């Protein structure tokens, strides 16, 4: 149980920013490991590229702005942003994709607004949206799980795919992403979205497409790993419980309402919770202390608003996953939410 500490000890250990960021990154590790296990080590490569680019970009901008470079780099916020970008893009995407994303996140979204603590938008999500809008094809070409690959793809092949676009045997990513039945394997959300646009109902999609069943399991496991990491964050009190709890509850509620309304065309709450970016969003992205609302009531409102937009855009929008768009909309509303949910000063009427 957590009580506000009104009695001794009055002096508490205060974690520095770099310690917090380090623990947050540690909490991401289980999910990253599972992602590598199911989909190959491409994602580790993306993380390395992304972190390196982000650090170089941050150092360059800090030098231009005449700010201390080493001290700022040590806070680890750029590394966290870079890791979040890298895990949200397809793990075998071409190398320049993640580099553009990291550059945009650090230079435009973070540093141009004044650096850590000043940015309005979540840098990782803004970069994700930039990439998704600019390069829709590579951003939605997810490779199938290792067990389903039509050709054997080893470690060297994955590196080659990222940097040159072809494996040693000359297969491209598109060829890899098509399984033996000739179906394109995307994320489950993606498959459902495409199927619905083509006029099928959910039961028909589930029957016809093996992709959805086969990649649903690993993606759900990865999501559970994010949930686990998030619970550690909550337990360590690094993030407030308001946002994840409100977000997950309202996403369940909203998707349940829409599911009951039209079960043949709108996916179930479980599907919504465990197959998209819901878990990483709830614990690692929405809870970003810089861009989230800062008042207790405001945090609830912020999370409910984003959950509403996630369900709405997923079910009615053109893009398969909606979290990034919803988070940016939520970020825009934060100043207004904070203004109207200011807690009263103690003792005032």
């Amino acid at each position, binding site marked *: 149980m957590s009580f506000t500490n009104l009695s001794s000890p009055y002096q508490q250990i205060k974690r520095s920013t770099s310690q917090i960021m380090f623990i947050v990154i540690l909490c991401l590790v289980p999910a990253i490991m599972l992602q590598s296990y199911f989909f190959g080590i491409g994602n580790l490569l993306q993380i390395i590229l992304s972190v390196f680019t982000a650090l170089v970009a941050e150092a360059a901008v800090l030098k231009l702005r005449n700010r201390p470079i080493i001290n700022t780099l040590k806070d680890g916020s750029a590394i966290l942003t870079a890791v979040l970008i890298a895990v949200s893009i397809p793990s075998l995407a071409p190398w320049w994709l993640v580099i553009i994303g990291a550059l945009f996140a650090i230079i*435009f979204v973070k540093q141009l607004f004044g650096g850590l603590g000043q940015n309005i938008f979540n840098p990782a999500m803004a970069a994700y949206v*930039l990439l998704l*809008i*600019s*390069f*829709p*094809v*590579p951003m939605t070409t997810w490779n199938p799980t290792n067990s389903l690959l039509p050709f054997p793809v080893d470690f060297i092949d994955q590196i080659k795919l990222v940097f040159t676009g072809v494996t040693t045997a000359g297969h491209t990513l598109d060829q890899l992403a098509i399984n033996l039945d000739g179906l394109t394997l995307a994320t489950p959300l993606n498959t459902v979205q495409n199927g619905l646009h083509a006029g099928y109902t959910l039961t028909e999609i589930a029957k016809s497409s093996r992709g959805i069943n086969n990649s649903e399991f690993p993606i759900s496991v990865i999501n559970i790993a994010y949930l686990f990491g998030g619970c550690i964050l909550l337990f360590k009190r690094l993030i407030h419980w308001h946002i994840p709890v409100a977000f997950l509850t309202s996403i369940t509620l909203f998707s349940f309402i829409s599911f009951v309304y039209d079960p043949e065309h709108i996916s179930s709450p479980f599907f919504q919770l465990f197959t998209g970016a819901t878990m990483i969003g709830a614990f690692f992205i929405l809870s970003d202390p810089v861009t989230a609302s800062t008042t207790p009531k405001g945090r609830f409102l912020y999370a409910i608003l984003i959950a509403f937009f996630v369900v709405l855009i997923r079910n009615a929008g053109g893009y398969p996953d909606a979290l990034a768009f919803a988070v940016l909309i939520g970020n825009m509303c934060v100043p207004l939410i904070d203004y109207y949910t200011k807690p009263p000063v103690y003792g005032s009427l």
Partner: protein
Amino acid sequence: MAHSNEKTTSDKQPDVQNKLNNDPKQSIYKELMWQGLWKNNPGVVQLLGLCPLLAVTNTATNALGLGIATTAVLVTSNTVISLLRHHIPATLRIPIFVMIIASLVTCVQLLMNAYTYEVYLSLGIFIPLIVTNCNIIGRAEAFASKNKITHSAFDGLMMGLGFSCVLMILGATREVLAQGTVFDGIQTLLGGWAAFLTVHIYHSETRFLLAALPPGAFIIMGIIIAIKNTIDEKIDTKR
């Protein structure tokens, strides 16, 4: 010389006015040129006419087309308004300016429809919208209604060229980023002889779509303004 003037002149119009009344002929034109092309550039300093600036600069050809159209309207509207400046009652000046500008824009629109049909199609609504370009009515109100014809026409030309330069830089940058070309389709604007102007810089399967979309225009515009301010700062510190 423009440089010696720069320190004493602020961006404000009245100072230009004094200069025009006192200075010898030669330096007036130089001052107008300096103001229009750099110091008081309508695109990156006054930030007027941003709507067409951001909307149609997805290719250098479109940017050039809009630049030419806007410059033509600016020169002619400045000339006509300066010609009629003693006959326009002060209280009614804005509707009269708008009517003059609107008729000139209609002429330009019909000309483009006749001679550069494809550019006319790709610029679409933004040709008639030149009427509402604040830059044009701004020059009419601030300059042409108070100065003689030659100065007004020259001011219109320089402001138009300054605006076109920004359009072209923005258009070319966006086109390179989005398609890897510069002046793609220029022959639809200038005729078949201009086809050699098209430059293919690189070819790629995946296009950087953001650069072709309005948000990309905003971001690149911000970068251009930042570069301009940096150059100004460098010049200031050198002196």
